[in-house]
């Protein structure tokens, strides 16, 4: 900005304000959707059919407004925006023009547009490239950017071993089901949804309870000593790309005796001394004891017995969740359940070495 005269800066500002006011006007008059957004772009194109005055400013203001219109993850809209650039006027004709950034402002604008696409995980296609080629040619920096995107982005498209669908559902229940399915390590897990008036507890009328539990977890509850309590803990956050949810778990304190047995069994299996349980070749190998199998739910820091996502994440909904669980887990009726809840947004209390921090933590308790 420093190298330019004030007049042109002023003109640029005016153009930017002018094009943002177009979006502002349409946002107030009509529904904020793809149709309105594209009509704004078309409005500009029909108005500036020949000269395309201020098209860079128009694209920048359009990029800013995309999220507001809910079109920021739509490739077709980005293609539509490319149409705003004048065609065939900015193709460099020589190597020098290529290297000295032919039409730098316009190219930077196109690169920023693609940057935004990257940010929202929008992968361009060949049609996008063809449109870009008509504007800047294949040698320009903007086109190189497109080529890099086409190389790397599809490479990482399916890199996630815990995949999430590209289009996330808007419905909270569907989203919760997705999250539960992703979090359930046990393939055997069944996801049950309680919804509507059939469930006792008042809050479930408007909201839902989606709970995940497997047969192994059920048998773990059955085996649980009814003197020691179970805990409902949460809310923890869980992310599905850009959507976050709050989940709660039903947890038991770790069964130290069993964990010790598992550890012994694992050590025995790993040790070379127990590789063969025979001394002579014709001797039959027979197991001496039943080795307990550790389930995935029995972790060192506790046993996970069920997971839940409720519509409103209130304590009432969790109470009715436990009641719902009692229908499938009769043993749960005898076991005391303690609620250890914190607000999902609240930060974790850090108790440091310093005495000051300890005091602070005590005060908040």
């Amino acid at each position, binding site marked *: 900005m420093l190298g330019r005269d004030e007049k042109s800066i002023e003109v640029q500002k005016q153009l930017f304000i002018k094009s943002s006011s177009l979006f502002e006007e349409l946002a107030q008059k009509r529904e904020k959707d793809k149709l309105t957004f594209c009509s704004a772009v078309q409005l500009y194109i029909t108005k500036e059919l020949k000269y395309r005055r201020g098209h860079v400013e128009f694209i920048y203001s359009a990029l800013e407004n995309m999220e507001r219109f809910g079109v920021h993850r739509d490739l077709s809209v980005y293609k539509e925006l490319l149409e705003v650039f004048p065609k065939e006027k900015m193709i460099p004709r020589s190597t020098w023009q290529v290297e000295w950034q032919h039409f*730098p402002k316009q190219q930077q604008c196109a690169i920023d547009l693609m940057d935004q696409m990257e940010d929202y995980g929008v992968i361009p296609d060949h049609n996008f490239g063809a449109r870009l080629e008509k504007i800047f040619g294949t040698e320009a920096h903007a086109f190189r950017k497109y080529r890099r995107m086409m190389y790397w982005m599809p490479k990482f498209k399916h890199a996630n071993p*815990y995949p999430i669908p590209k289009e996330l559902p808007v419905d909270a229940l569907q989203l919760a089901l997705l*999250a539960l399915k*992703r*979090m359930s390590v046990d393939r055997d897990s069944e996801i049950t949804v309680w919804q509507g008036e059939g469930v006792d507890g008042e809050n479930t009328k408007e909201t839902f309870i989606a709970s995940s539990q497997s047969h192994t977890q059920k048998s773990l509850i059955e085996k649980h000593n009814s003197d020691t309590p179970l805990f409902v803990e949460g809310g923890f956050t869980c992310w599905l790309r850009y959507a976050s949810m709050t989940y709660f778990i039903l947890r038991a304190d770790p069964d130290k005796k069993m964990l010790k047995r598992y550890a012994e069994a694992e050590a025995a299996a790993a040790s070379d001394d127990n590789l063969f349980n025979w001394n002579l070749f014709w001797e039959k190998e027979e197991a001496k004891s039943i080795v307990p199998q550790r389930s995935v739910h029995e972790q060192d820091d506790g046993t996970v017995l069920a997971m839940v996502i409720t519509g409103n994440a209130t304590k009432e909904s969790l109470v009715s969740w436990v009641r719902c669980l009692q229908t499938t887990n009769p043993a749960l009726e005898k076991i005391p359940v303690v609620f250890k809840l914190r607000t999902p947004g609240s930060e*974790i209390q850090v108790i440091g070495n310093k005495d000051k921090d300890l005091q602070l933590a005590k005060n908040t308790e």
Partner: protein
Amino acid sequence: MAQGVCRYASIMNGARQVLFHHRIHKVFKQHLVCISVWEKDKKGGNRKPYPVSHIEMIKDGLKMMGPEMKKFGDEMKHKFRADPFVNINDGDYEYIWKFNDRKRVEEWIVSSDHDNNEGQSKANLTFSTNNTALFHGYLSQQVPKDGVVKRTGYCNIRSPTKFLSFKREDNHDWSCFTHLLMRVRGDGRPYMVTISMDRFFDINWFDQYHYTLFTRGGPYWQIAKIPFSKFYVTSKGRIQDKQEPIQLERITHLSITIGDGNEGPFYLEIDYIACMFDENHKEAFAYESYVTDPAHVNT
């Protein structure tokens, strides 16, 4: 004219090569980068002045003499004893960092965009009640209104520098391993694992190798096994056109970054970070290394 050059540089670099599907690999600060033929500072301009005076530094240094001499003695003993070379077998692993001690967790360095006046994110690395390290905080997307920073939101933890006696910097040698193993429990967000290395020439100072640590989310632990062949090279946050496999002989740091562009709280519980040798992993490099148009590479 200087402005023109700066602008040109920014556009050249502005051809920011990649940010993949889950918005992990992100360049947060896109300011005008002045072209120069050499790099002045290994920290790339983020160096802060020393908080203590030279006299105090000498005083502190003298206090260290005792323990450092002992350390030096141990090193010498180790050297002359000449420990035999141990053959590495399939499935062998070594804990590089196991967070079962408060001291080991506190050695790690936590930083966020807030530290560099680039944002409002908060991060913390704490020793949790489960005897693990808990990296948690709040990722903020609020861009400071300084007219320079375009997008923001990152938090990072970095491993402590390995020192020999008398505070000589040492490197990790992982060349015998093929995989990075991490036992973590996350919140479903993708994290980025960065490996930085000690390189001599200034053109390579900012070379870093990245790959993504995808977390499942939920109360269960997961073990991530990332092959080193999948790490790709970047410089100053930009993925490079000219890729080459990671060289594991002189690793200085390993860091874990969150910056997926979603505002909100995050947490990642880490039990250990280890290296592993898998005999069946034959892949040298996961990306093509064919020669592209030399006029377009890295411009």
